């Protein structure tokens, strides 16, 4: 299975020396829906912009289908944050622009979807609701028939019904064309039913990447009397204490046996993600500089 997207030592430093992303090495396997999770400022949008060919790497490389993104633009569909479209244009004009700019653009698919969603093709973009605008942006991307969809916080301003419509359309496209999706969000709760692969970014670095079921399998939530960690020798990701008990997220190793007084469980998706978002590894001052 060849990765649809691959980065190696990828980094970007903004003007003024702010580091958007550093030393990012990862692969997006084909046909997966990948969650890109991290707090604000952790590098999600920087990574997406570099994957879309909009931002040049300062260090390292990014490849889509084995080539720099700039040479693969026909295979990449990008919906930036808040689905920006020209506000004064009519929906029909936006679709026409999509058709002119993209050689593989499926006009029937695009107009069919817009009708199905009940959006008037004569309406100007700035008269649409947030959910409708997101759907028009997604329609452009789907009609382009990309192999890699990059979606930056696509659900952030949508009400529950619009979210559901958006996701259903996205999933239908995934199963019809086998496209991969890289989907950023800082809302953890709903990601489990959306994604099957997880990338956690924190302070511009990749903290965790892999298949979600596999990641849950190789981690444990261990509860024990306060101080048990000292006897551990395990890779502790995150721990909290209270009421005489310490709860820790650890990377498990089959040779690690349960100790006396310790309880183990498989972490839930939320425990896994939150554990890595607030892990105890100190971030060097240098990394933030």
């Amino acid at each position, binding site marked *: 299975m060849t990765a649809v997207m691959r980065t190696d030592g990828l980094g970007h430093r903004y003007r003024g020396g702010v580091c958007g992303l550093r030393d990012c090495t990862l692969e997006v396997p084909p*046909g997966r829906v990948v969650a890109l999770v991290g707090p604000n400022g952790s590098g999600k949008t920087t990574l997406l912009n570099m994957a879309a060919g909009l931002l040049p790497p300062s260090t390292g490389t990014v490849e889509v289908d084995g080539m720099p993104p700039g040479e693969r633009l026909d295979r990449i569909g990008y919906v930036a944050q808040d689905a920006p479209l020209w506000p004064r244009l009519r929906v029909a004009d936006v679709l026409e622009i999509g058709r002119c700019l993209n050689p593989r653009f499926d006009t029937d698919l695009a107009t069919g979807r817009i009708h199905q969603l009940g959006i008037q093709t004569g309406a100007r973009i700035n008269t649409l609701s947030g959910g409708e605008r997101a759907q028009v942006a997604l329609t452009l991307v789907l009609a382009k028939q990309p192999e890699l969809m990059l979606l930056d916080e696509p659900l952030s301003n949508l009400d529950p019904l619009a979210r559901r419509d958006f996701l259903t359309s996205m999933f*239908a496209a995934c199963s019809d064309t086998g496209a991969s999706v890289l989907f950023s969000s800082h809302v953890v*709760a709903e990601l489990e039913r959306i994604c*099957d692969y997880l990338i956690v970014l924190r302070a511009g670095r990749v903290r965790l990447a892999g298949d979600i*079921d596999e990641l849950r399998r190789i981690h444990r939530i261990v509860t024990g009397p306060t101080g048990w960690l000292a006897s551990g020798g395990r890779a502790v990701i995150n721990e909290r204490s209270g009421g005489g008990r310490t709860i820790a997220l650890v990377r498990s190793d089959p040779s690690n046996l349960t100790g*006396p007084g*310790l309880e183990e469980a498989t972490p839930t998706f939320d425990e896994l993600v939150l554990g890595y978002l607030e892990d105890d590894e100190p971030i060097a001052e240098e990394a933030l500089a």
Partner: protein
Amino acid sequence: MFRIDGGSGVPVYRQLVEQVRREVMLGRMDPGDQLPTLKEVVEALAINPNTVAKAYGELEHEGLVVRRQGVGTFIASAPPARSLAAPPALLNSLLRWVRRAKDAGMSAEQIRGLVAVALEEDLADEAAPRRTGGVA
């Protein structure tokens, strides 16, 4: 059709697998019955198609369902013994026990907790011989 409990902490694919198992165990689905198609499940629940495919794959692997290319997924004509419908006597005795627990003033939550403890203790007994040594 399936239901997803987002707050349960149980992986979505596992929830799907367990719901099919339960339907068969309770005799609500019979051999030859068709499961909803992948597309139907994705549209109804707005969940990742890979998750549904994984659930159906696991059910097929354990022999509970068969997939016919281009037709659909069906409950197998001879499901594995452990997936067969539960003997009605078992359910009846459990119902009697639940009524006793209620009469003793226990809440549904407490009853669930008791069942979970009993299951865990039974599993721990089975696993006991392998649980030697301390923290590695």
